[in-house]
């Protein structure tokens, strides 16, 4: 079973309305708390130190959302912001969900132009690699079970959602 495009659109619109109307500060606090919880081991091991003094932008296409994530050497902080970033990662809400649920490989999405990376590539790649290394089955509470269900729902969506691609054949300029 996979989620069809119609449902994707409806979920996206609903999510967009909720996020735009909800007050920003509680959203930022909640997102920051979640990040620090999920990446607790990575922070303790020094795996996030490369982020110190840098800002990563997460841009959610279709929802018109842009968040900045920073690391102060101790804790990660996420907040909606328009300020400049060192690198940015943009995708639609469904693609971010697929990445989060580990239903799809980041390089696969990138090859298919469904994930856009701009700015400091080494920095963005480091973020991707640290996130890949998070052992989702060791996450707290009901998260492992929830991610497993989400992964089943979303897997296979890639092939269906991917539009037929034009061949990258050379053409005379």
């Amino acid at each position, binding site marked *: 079973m996979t989620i069809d495009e119609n449902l994707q659109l409806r979920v996206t619109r609903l999510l967009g309305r909720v996020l735009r109307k909800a007050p920003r500060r509680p959203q930022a606090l909640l997102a920051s708390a979640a990040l620090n919880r999920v990446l607790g081991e990575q922070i303790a091991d020094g795996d996030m130190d490369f982020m110190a003094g840098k800002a990563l932008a997460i841009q959610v296409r279709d929802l018109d959302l842009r968040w900045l994530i920073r690391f102060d050497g101790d804790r990660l902080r996420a907040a909606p912001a328009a300020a400049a970033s060192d690198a940015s990662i943009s995708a639609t809400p469904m693609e971010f969900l697929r990445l989060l649920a580990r239903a799809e490989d980041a390089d696969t999405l990138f*090859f298919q*132009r469904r994930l856009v990376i*701009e700015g400091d590539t080494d920095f963005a790649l480091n973020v991707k690699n640290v996130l*890949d290394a998070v052992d989702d*089955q060791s996450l707290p509470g009901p998260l492992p079970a929830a991610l497993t269900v989400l992964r089943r729902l979303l897997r296979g969506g890639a*092939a269906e959602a991917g539009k037929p691609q034009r061949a990258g054949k050379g053409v005379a300029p």
Partner: protein
Amino acid sequence: MMELVCPAGNFTSLKAAVDNGADAVYMGFNDHTNARSFSGLNFSDKQVDKAIDYARSRGKRVFVAINTYPHPARLATWEAAVDRAAAHRADALILADLGLMAYAAERHPLLPLHLSVQASATNLEALRFYTQNFGVRRAVLPRVLSMKQVAQLAAAAPCDLEVFGFGSLCIMAEGRCHLSSYVTGESPNIAGVCSPAKAVEWRETPQGLQTRLNGVLVDHYAAGENASYPTLCKGRFVVDGRRSHALEEPTSLNTLALIPELAACGVKAIKIEGRQRSPAYVAQVVATWRSALDEYFIHHSDGVTLDRKRREWDSSLRKHAEGVQTTLGAYDRVWQ
């Protein structure tokens, strides 16, 4: 049965490989000593122990790739990597450099050695040299040989052979490629990456996505056109007034169709490329290959059944392909 050897860039990928049917996993340390040296990728000493425990307790083997060529001024780092792998009790080392092989054979005579694809050994004499001098037990063949050549080599090889089954293809001058060094000053042979990420720039423009390597425009993708890894070899250049993939078109190898032939000629192992990719890729590609190998070796399915199932397997693998297609690469070249 052929051994399914799968990539692991971190512990999560290793788990995905083992849980989805890998017989063996290959990995590297988080430094320049292996050919996938990316920030945040690969294993620290603490993670190596955890990884080897996980694999071994499930009856799987772990190979450590130390397959770049030592920087002359930093030989100690590479030698230390060999000692570390031995201390972690790896099942085998995957090496390319002659000096390192001599070091490993002398210091750790009981540790099995595999010849990396980076060593580019394509003929019988080369294989004999490595087995006679260093006791190499297995060689990973470069992706330049046709099926007929693989079969001829396998018939007389003094060691086991491992071939690539799936993954991104390279320009096939493995271990000898200096293309990225030409624009970035770093070659994959010593620095461990084809395009150092710090030299890569992606830029969305109204005309499409531009890729630059150390400021040099390497490719330009129109809307809807598949992108590839930002390597010089896969870029498009204007040659004689015509813009094309002058060096190589980005494609992925997929040799599911060759399982019966590879098995018949005695190839011992199939390697899946992709330590740089996510656990999601590892899980899906490994599961597909496990099904395919089991269908052939355990269920002894007939050709018709295999062909029917292969269409499903091929389509699940195709979406992971770099570029727009999967190919048999050099295996089906009849002119060789």
